[in-house]
């Protein structure tokens, strides 16, 4: 464990209105990691299968190009963004709203350990500080402060993720929102952001272009079924007239290629 005093903070974080006095670091990542281009991915804790998939996909694709993925280790979107980055073998930084020695929520202790093995867990609070509701908004200013851009994946009205977006806007950083269904309560916050001028995010490359990083281009892999998604197995059975076993076989092969992902029985394109 290490601590940076105010003078040692990364430039972007030092530039915010109210930088932390100290920043505690835990993990095997060098503190220079915090100077690298970073993007924050935040959103609802009780997210939908769609949101969870988008967060994981963004985490993976951004981290694959060397961008550091910053988030808050919370359930839902935050955790999926971290996991996506770890999947890609990239770097991800978790910002805690409690003492640096605590894993909150406890269910994410393993995730925190995996992050610390490769990258960093950071907090402005000294060891032993309990998590408290009023510390999370303060934590959000660090998430926004570390990142050149903030992506909100799913957010309800008055979600904590919107606070992060506000901090980012105040500091003049780019804010992206993932468009969602206008009828869904989980999209109300993100759609409100879009209405007031946030950039709609339709693919990871949108963020990369804005921050001036060349998107990582794999040889494009395509499959005729991708155009039919999102769909359940049953819907594909009816469209393709194959039996359920054959459809499952093909989908599992596509899943292994990273082309599709499943959530709550619905398969979606993952690229």
């Amino acid at each position, binding site marked *: 464990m290490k601590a940076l005093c105010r003078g040692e903070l990364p430039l972007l974080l030092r530039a915010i209105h109210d930088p932390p006095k100290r920043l505690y670091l835990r993990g095997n990542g060098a503190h220079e990691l915090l100077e690298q281009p970073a993007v924050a991915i935040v959103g*609802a*804790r*009780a997210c*939908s*299968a769609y949101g*969870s998939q988008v967060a994981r996909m963004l985490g993976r694709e951004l981290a694959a190009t060397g961008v550091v993925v910053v988030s808050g280790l*919370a*359930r*839902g979107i935050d955790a999926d963004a971290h996991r996506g980055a770890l999947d890609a073998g990239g770097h991800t930084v978790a910002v805690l709203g409690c003492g640096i020695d605590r894993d909150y*929520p406890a*269910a994410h202790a393993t995730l925190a350990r995996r992050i610390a093995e490769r990258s960093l867990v950071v907090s402005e609070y000294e060891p032993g500080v309990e998590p408290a509701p009023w510390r999370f908004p303060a934590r959000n200013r660090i998430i926004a402060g570390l990142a050149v851009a903030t992506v909100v994946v799913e957010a309800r009205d008055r979600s904590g993720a919107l606070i992060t977006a506000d901090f980012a806007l105040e500091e003049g950083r780019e804010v992206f929102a993932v468009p969602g269904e206008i009828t*869904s*309560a989980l999209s109300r916050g993100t759609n409100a952001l879009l209405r007031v001028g946030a950039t709609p995010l339709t693919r990871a490359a949108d963020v990369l272009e804005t921050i001036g990083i060349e998107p990582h281009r794999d040889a494009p892999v395509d499959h005729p079924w991708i155009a039919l998604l999102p769909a*359940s*197995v*049953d*819907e594909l*059975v*009816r469209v393709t007239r194959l*039996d*359920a*076993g054959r*459809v*499952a*076989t*093909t*989908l*599992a*092969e596509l*899943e*292994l290629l990273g082309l599709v992902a*499943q*959530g*709550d*029985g*619905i398969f979606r394109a993952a690229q």
Partner: protein
Amino acid sequence: MLARAVTHALVGLEPRRVEVEAHVRELAAPAFAIVGLADRACQEAKERVASAIRSAELRWPDGRIVVNLAPAELRKEGSGFDVPIALAVLAASRQIPHARLAEHASIGELALDGRIRRVGGVLAVAEGARRGGLTDLLCPSDACGEAALAGVVAVPVRHLADAAAYLRGDLELEPYVPTNGTAAPRSPLDLAEVRGQERARRALEIAAAGGHNLLLGGPPGTGKTMLARRLPSILPRLDDERALEVTRIHSVAGLVDPAHPLVVEAPFRAPHHSASTAAIVGGGPRLRPGEASLAHHGVLLLDELAEFQRPALEALRQPLEDGVITVARAAGTIRFPARFQLVGTMNLCPCGARGDPNAQCSCSAQRLARYKDKLSRALLDRFDLVVAMPRPRATELAAEPGESSHAVCERVSAALDRLRRAPPGRTSDADDFLTRAVERLGLSGRGRARVGRVARTIAALAAADAVNVEHVAEALSYRAPDELAR
């Protein structure tokens, strides 16, 4: 004057020989005592026996009567001792011959008017009698079918007066002639009634063929329970040995149908989610088999899995692993067989809206986490197949009726046969594919084994010579999603 009748007490499913000794001291002050660790129901036999003997127009001996149930250290439970107690008292008062009584085991509960009622566990008692060298069992007439399964001569007695007359040689009773009777009708539930849900139907077929545990998730009203209840309809009938094992357990629980004593259909049990741990795995003060044992060689459906009490779910881990439940008591341990196929259904969140495009989930993150935490990883790990059933579109519900249970059952039987005779092995391509998948998806060792097992069943259903890449790929699609396995 002393007399002795033989019956059997059950310890779990095991019969233990019990000698019912009656001593009548005439001319002493009238009294009636039962000793030998008899429970309450057994103590109450005094009143039933006295009344039944008088109703049968036999003589209730005057004087002091002591009945001893030996061995005295074994706890005796239930009302099945009524008949042997009554017969021992009758023999002790010289109303029936000792020698005849000693050639018969007996069991049954007495009504106050002397009729003989059936009790649970007759099959196990009959087996105990046969093993103990007694070939004749006096048993309630409607339990004879059960007793005959053990290979003893079942003498059907309807009334205590008949039993006494038969033992005196005044009445001929035709021993029960074992018949297989007419086969019990199959359950009227048929898979044809399930429309759409092709994926879940496929998973059900694989589960049936491989005996795999199946977890169905999805919003309410997508047919999870309807589908799960139709699993027995595609399972083949039990072979003789298994049928007898199942019947023995059902007999102890008093569930045997007198018209079709042998249970030939795979049993299906669906305890309510409020069930206690003892109700599910067995035990309790009377050491009865639980739902898990009643589902032996059949299906245990836990509808709304996440609503069950956590201790009850955790208690299922032992039978899922070993196929037996061990109930430990200070006096010793009892083993109940419980090799069942587990089917669970659950909503994807506590409010039930998850997975339903027309509803908004209102669950908080904590509530969602608690709901999923209810299923420990260890239990989740026992489900070979996990299928999410999203709400079907209206057009699917208007689809043609599905394939009938009969047609599916034939494929399942053929696959079971292949798996038993020569389970297909994996090709090296399939092996490589599985290894890559395990790395990519981060499966545990157990997860890998599970995918391998399911792939083997899929290959058997396809009548393939070996497990190919496509079989492994399909098997992978039934693994538990990450959000559950976390």
